[in-house]
């Protein structure tokens, strides 16, 4: 293990320098009464710049990442993150803008944001977009609040939100945060919404149905228009969790399918990097009838100038200070401009091609949870037939790490036993997929001939299999100075 930064360095050392103080010096107590001043010093590290650079560089090398490894994490769309987009977002003309600068000094910024909203409207078939939500789940919350405001304005608040059992955990969590009661709709035997079950669940008390399309099994909801009709017929709204838009951008539009509200994940579909957990960005699009409820402020054009309009009386308010994760939006803007309409469609085509190719290569050795038709951008295998060998999905995932591959998403969706969810994305070449498939197949052989090799994996990573039970039972969540 790399030593903790706190255990590196030495008393009195530091890694930054400040200009010499050029205003009159004084004791802080001459400005601030002693009782408001800090008594116990924060024990920050004391390291040189080189110590610091080495520490974090060494840490970085303990990670697998898209830049270094194939990262087929289902539902996360770990595609290549173009470098030019990073460069552009870090230009001081963007990165050094203060959110309260006079509008006249940020016209280029506002134009870029306005154009991004417009492009997202066209890609999704929606009438208006907000860039404020900071992530997908944040977009869900925004969408639920918009739906709530809409129903309340009609004098019909409604209490329930329908969510399929295959949905991401954020869906029920977002609906509950908004005060809604969550009703789970079971999937049918084909892995799609069971129309009968949906009809039973739909009713006058339902405010929204949240749906992921293609769903988390990688299947397009063929009956989407019928679903929309049932939902709209009951007076409810249809919400798209756009986590899987990488299969649809440029191919088909949620707005045409009957969705009233949707979020997109700029950090998935539109190539912005995940940063080890964030920042993301989860813009929300709505149909015209809901546009007035979007968070404030809205970007408008007035007298040929871009302006931030805070006079939004019906707006749900704000879900974040300022206007959104702008640095992320800039990268997504660059991506959309680079690919253009046709490029986006090609990317979706190739994402789907890659997923189907990999599924075909693995079919003889792994069991797809749902088969008999093409998948979209991802597919789900079940590891349950490996259980008799004493090997579980978790073990297969860990063994993949030994071969230099990040593991697919595992144990999700919850409705598939021992699930292995694979999303290769379009930026991976046939050679990478071939090599990955070979390793997956090799692991099934190992599971049969030498299961302990698999169940004790990983063997070659910086640490061996970590004890999560001990971590949860004997919580150690921070460094403390010894003896303190």
């Amino acid at each position, binding site marked *: 293990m790399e030593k903790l930064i706190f255990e590196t360095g030495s008393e009195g050392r530091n890694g930054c320098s400040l200009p010499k103080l050029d205003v009159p010096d004084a004791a802080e107590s001459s400005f601030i009464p002693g009782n408001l001043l800090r008594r116990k010093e924060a024990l920050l590290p004391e390291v040189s710049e080189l110590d610091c650079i080495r520490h974090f560089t060494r840490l970085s090398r303990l990670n697998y990442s898209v830049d270094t490894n194939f990262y087929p994490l289902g539902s996360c769309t770990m595609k290549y993150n173009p470098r030019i987009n990073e460069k552009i977002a870090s230009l001081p003309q963007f990165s050094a803008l203060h959110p309260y600068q006079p509008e006249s000094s940020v016209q280029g910024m506002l134009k870029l944001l306005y154009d991004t909203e417009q492009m997202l409207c066209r890609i999704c078939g929606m009438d208006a977009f907000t860039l404020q939500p900071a992530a997908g789940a944040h977009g869900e919350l925004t969408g639920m609040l918009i739906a709530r405001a809409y129903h309340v304005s009609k004098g019909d608040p409604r209490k329930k939100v329908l969510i399929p059992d295959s949905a991401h955990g954020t869906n029920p969590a977002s609906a509950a945060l908004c005060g809604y009661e969550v009703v789970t709709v079971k999937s049918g035997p084909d892995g799609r919404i069971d129309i009968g079950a949906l009809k039973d669940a739909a009713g006058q008390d339902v405010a929204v149905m949240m749906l992921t399309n293609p769903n988390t099994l990688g299947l397009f909801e063929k009956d989407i228009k019928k679903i929309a009709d049932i939902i709209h017929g009951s007076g409810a709204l249809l919400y798209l969790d756009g986590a899987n838009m990488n299969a649809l951008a440029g191919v088909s539009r949620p707005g045409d399918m009957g969705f009233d509200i949707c979020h997109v994940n700029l950090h998935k579909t539109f190539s912005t990097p995940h940063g080890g957990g964030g920042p993301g960005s989860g813009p929300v699009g709505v149909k015209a009838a809901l546009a007035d409820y979007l968070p404030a402020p809205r970007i408008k054009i007035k007298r040929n100038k871009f302006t931030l309009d805070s006079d939004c009386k019906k707006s749900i308010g704000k879900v974040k200070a300022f206007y959104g994760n702008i640095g992320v939006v800039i990268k997504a803007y660059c991506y959309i401009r680079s690919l253009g309409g046709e490029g986006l469609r090609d990317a979706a085509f190739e994402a789907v091609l890659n997923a189907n190719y990999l599924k075909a290569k693995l079919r003889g050795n792994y069991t797809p949870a749902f088969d008999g038709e093409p998948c979209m951008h991802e597919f789900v295998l079940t590891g349950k037939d490996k259980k008799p060998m004493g090997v579980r999905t978790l073990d297969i995932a860990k063994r993949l790490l030994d071969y230099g591959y990040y593991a697919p998403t595992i*144990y999700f969706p919850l409705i598939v036993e021992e699930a292995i969810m694979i999303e290769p994305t379009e930026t991976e070449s046939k050679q990478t997929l071939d090599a990955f498939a070979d390793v997956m197949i090799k692991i099934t052989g190992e599971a049969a001939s030498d299961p302990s090799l698999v169940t004790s994996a990983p063997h070659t990573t910086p640490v061996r299999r970590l004890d*999560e*039970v001990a971590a*949860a*039972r004997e919580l150690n969540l921070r460094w403390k100075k010894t003896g303190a």
Partner: protein
Amino acid sequence: MADTGKLLFAKTHEWLRVEGNIGYVGITDHAQKEITDVVFVELPKVGKEVSKEGEAAVVESVKAAFSIYAPVSGRVIKANDAVEKDPSIVNKSPYDDGWFFAIEMKDPEETASLMSLKDYEEFIKSGAH
């Protein structure tokens, strides 16, 4: 070692040991195996009113959380702090040291719907859970 033959069982895998009008509650051996390593138990506060089949506690493993339902209605009079401090007790001794809480039972009749050990074992075998 508890005499499991004297315990009563709920379909949701809790056991109940009746002592006068007090009922001790824990989870079954089958349940602790299914849950795997218990890493945390959230117990009800003493004094809390619980109703039969209402959520009374939560058991967490690393990858899941399970609701524990009261097998009978009543007021919680004791909570077993030991399982909060060392949750592994639930795995090691589900029927003895690993009990969760005790209820002052409101209506002893409510126990009628609970199963005997034999019925519970049959219930598990049948796979109806």
